[in-house]
Every structure is written in C-alpha cells, then in structure tokens.
C-alpha cells in the first residue's frame, strides 16, 4: 500500500514539477507563493511578474539557441566559411547590431526589474508606519524559539515558545534575537526571512490578512537539529487573539485530579524544574521552553511532533532518539511517575 502511495506521489509530483507549476503551489502551509499577508502578497506579485517576464526571456533565448541548429546558415550559405572562418563584414555588422540591441533591451528590462523590486521592498517596509503595532520578540535558541510579547506594561508581557498567535490585520513587529548561534526566522506565508544574530536585534514586520495557521522554520543552518526547529504562527481575529492572550497571561492551571497533583510533584522533583518554567509554581528555569500553557500548544520539541500524550511520553523518555543532539536531558522517570507527569503537563492549557 505504501508503495502505491509513493507511486501516486511520484506521479503527482512529476505533474507538479513539469506541467502545473502554478497549481502545485496553491495550497501550502509553509509556502512563499501562498500569501496570507500584504507583505508576502506583494512579494508573491513580484515573484510572478519576474516569473513571467524572465520566463519569456528564457523561452526566447532558448528558441534562438535552438534555431542555430535548425536554421543554420540561413543567409550565410554563400559565404566561404570553411576557408576564412568568418562571415562578411555586412553580416558581422548585422550581428553586432543585433547583440547591441539585445543588450540594450536587457538593460531596460533589468532596470524595470530593479525598480519593481525596490518599490516592493519599500512598500513592504511601509508596514512599520501603520498604527497600533504589536511587538513580539523572537529569540532563536538551539533548537527552539522563545517568544516574548513585549507590551508596554510589563505585567502583560508574555513568554511562550514555538507558537505565535497574532491578531489579523494588525502590524506585527518581530524583534529577532539569538541566544547562541545565528538562526533565521521565516514564515513564508507572511513575509521573507530575517536572520537572528547574537549581539544584534533585527526587525521584521508582518501582518496576516486572514485567519489561519502558518508554519515557519529556521532558515539559517544552526547545527545538529536545524531541521527540527519549526514554529507556528496562528492568525486569529482580534477578539479571539485577545482571549488567547488573557488566557496565556494567567498563571498555570493548578492540578485538579490526584494524578495531576502527583504529576506536578514529579515535575518539581526531577531535573525538569531546573530548565523549565511553569508560572505560578516554583519552577522558573529559563534554559528550556516555558511550559506554563504547554497543553494548549500544537507541537512539542519545537514542533518536531504533534502535541499528544503519546508523543510527549516518547519525548520525555528518549528525547535524543527523536531529536538527536538536542539539549533536553535524558532523565529517568519511573513508569509510575510518567503517566501523572504527562497528565499534568497536558492539563496546562
């Protein structure tokens, strides 16, 4: 069955590649040409104009090149090429003028492209002049994302990880920072990428046009687990976003069931407490992702796995097999402790 699927996939992909470049790109949750915001929209427009224009040039050049084979010697048959190895002065002059003309045309086209590109870049930078921006600091870390909502009011500042919620239609300022090596923040459906460089703060502006979940991924090689450093940007209507924000600002839910209570104790009595923070408990470690509302997130291990209890169990027991080289300690949790721990963590909605 798997083979069948693969065969199907192969044929689908072949079609995609060679016949339907356009349609192949319509649905994608991490795609540069499926824009969900004004920034990526403009880039998308720019891309397609480049695509058609340069594609036409490519075709013309290819046709001309092919014609050197099919129409060889037309107009030159009479000239004694083999003897002299050159054409008449007249022909040479004609060729030279054609080349000159083609060169001028290419310069003009390039000029147009430069203008188009600069105008798009300028238009994209206009977003920072829009009112009521929301500032989110994204700190790249080997190999996950720390997300901080920077409100003017410190009590409304929020720290979370690997998942950004944004209100639709509001400009978002991403302040990029890095804790260790260079990473790159990239959510293609919303905007281009921006490197996160230690010792610098880089900024990027983005905005979502319509609600949706957009995947992003680290785009600058950052070591062993560069491949497993993904994040979600979830664009929501303003009211939904505000509700989310309010919920996130609350300390972690207290454990209710006996299992959860035991799970909390397990958490506090293992190395978990050294690296992770759960607001409202003594756990305030900063080295790992903040887990205050862990249960509400889509993925674990920087979205390496979907956030399910089974995956979480695997992750806690053997993180180094799932994501070799990552910085989560391999700790020993006894079988009796594991289930309560899982229930506790998943209860942190």
């Amino acid at each position, binding site marked *: 069955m798997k083979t069948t699927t693969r065969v199907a996939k192969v044929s689908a992909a072949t079609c995609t590649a060679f016949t339907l470049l356009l349609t192949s790109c319509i649905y994608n949750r991490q795609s540069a040409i499926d824009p969900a915001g004004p920034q990526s929209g403009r880039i998308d427009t720019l891309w397609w104009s480049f695509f058609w224009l340069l594609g036409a040039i490519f075709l013309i050049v290819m046709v001309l090149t092919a014609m050197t084979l099919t129409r060889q010697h037309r107009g030159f048959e009479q000239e004694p090429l083999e003897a002299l190895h050159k054409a008449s002065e007249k022909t040479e002059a004609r060729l030279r003028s054609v080349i000159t003309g083609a060169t001028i045309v290419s310069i003009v086209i390039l000029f147009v492209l430069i203008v188009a590109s600069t105008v798009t870049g300028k238009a994209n930078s206009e977003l920072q002049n829009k009112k009521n921006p929301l500032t989110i600091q994204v700190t790249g870390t080997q190999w996950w994302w720390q997300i901080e909502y920077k409100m003017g009011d410190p009590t409304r500042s929020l720290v979370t990880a690997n998942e950004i919620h944004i209100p639709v239609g509001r400009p978002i300022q991403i302040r990029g920072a890095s804790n*260790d090596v260079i990473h790159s923040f990239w959510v293609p459906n919303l905007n281009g990428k921006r490197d996160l460089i*230690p010792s610098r703060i880089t900024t990027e502006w983005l905005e979502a046009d319509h609600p949706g979940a957009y995947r992003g991924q680290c785009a600058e090689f950052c070591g*062993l687990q560069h491949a497993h450093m993904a994040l979600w940007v979830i664009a929501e209507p303003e009211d939904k976003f505000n509700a989310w924000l309010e919920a996130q600002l609350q300390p972690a839910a207290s454990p209710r069931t006996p299992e959860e209570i035991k799970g909390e104790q397990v958490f506090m*009595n*293992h*190395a978990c*407490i*050294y*690296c992770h923070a759960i607001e409202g408990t003594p756990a305030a470690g900063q*080295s790992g992702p903040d887990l205050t509302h862990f249960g509400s997130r889509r993925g674990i291990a920087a979205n390496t796995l979907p956030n399910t209890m089974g995956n979480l169990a695997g992750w806690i027991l053997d993180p*180094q*097999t799932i994501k*070799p*080289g990552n*910085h989560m*300690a*391999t*700790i*020993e949790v006894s079988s009796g402790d594991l289930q309560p721990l899982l229930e506790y963590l998943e209860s942190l909605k």
Partner: protein
Amino acid sequence: MKLTTVRNASGLAICFVVIACQRQHQDIRPSPTQLAIYGDAAKEDALRPGGPVSPQPTVNNPYNASAYDISEGQRLYNWYNCSGCHANGGGGIGPPLIKQHWIYGGEPANIFDTIVKGRPNGMPAWGGRIPEYQVWEIVAYIRSMNGEQPRSATASRADMIQPSPQTLVNRTNDQTK
C-alpha cells in the same frame, strides 16, 4: 604536555588519527541514566588506618577527553548555575575550581561525588536530579579548567566576555608547560 611530547616525538603522527577520533566522538545519545552514586569511588584522604590496603577501585569518567562532552559540560555548568557560585572557575560564593588543592579531592570520582552528594559547607547535593551522564560531562569540563583535559579537546574560549584578560596569558603558559 604529555600528548605534545608524543606528537613531537613521532613527527607526522599516525596517532593523530586515533586522537582525532576519540576527541571528536559525539555521544549524543547517552545510555540510560542510572543515577548511581559512586560513594566509595574515590577516597579524599590518603591515610588508611590499619596499614596499606589493596588499591581502591576507581571510577573513570566515561566522557574524559571528549570534546563534545566537555562542551556539553560547559553548557550545563552554566545551565545548572554552577557558574553562579564558582564563576568561570575563579569562584566567588563557592571556592575556585581552577586550582591545585581540592578540599574534597580532585579526581573525577571525587568531583562527581561532590556534585551528586553535595558538601557540608554550602555545596548543594544535585544527585537524583541531574542525570548521571550530565554530571560526568560537567566533571569533564571542570577538569578541563585545570588543563587536565587535552588541549585539543577543549575550547579556546567561549562566546562571552572572557574571564580574565591579564591572567589568561599565564593560564595558557601553564597549560603548555
């Protein structure tokens, strides 16, 4: 140091190959942790009442001389706040770790014991929480502070402001002795 001598002696050494292999090994999938405490792994005192005894079993650091694990140790040294008290080896709240004299013994097993069990004058007991393999990585890093790891396996510096510009010169000289 010794390794340098070996290298000098053998010129273009085939032993480079071996050394490189070992130093470069990245054990990123540690064996399951046991959290065993090597209580009797190493004695702090050379004195044995009742006359000489047969040699003590010594527990060796499985991560000795491994560049990857020393660097992991350095990361954990900061993550677990060792640096809070012992700074980058110079000490402060806790005693220095760059030194010749160890209060509770400087063998890897002693340092392991110190971390796991704690010491009465303020060293917390980390056993039961920090996984054993990470303790050994920290031990490897601490030993590297004193030049007790091959230089080819230790980092020349970290990406932060450096411990001490003036005296690092001497430290390097010491290491090359």
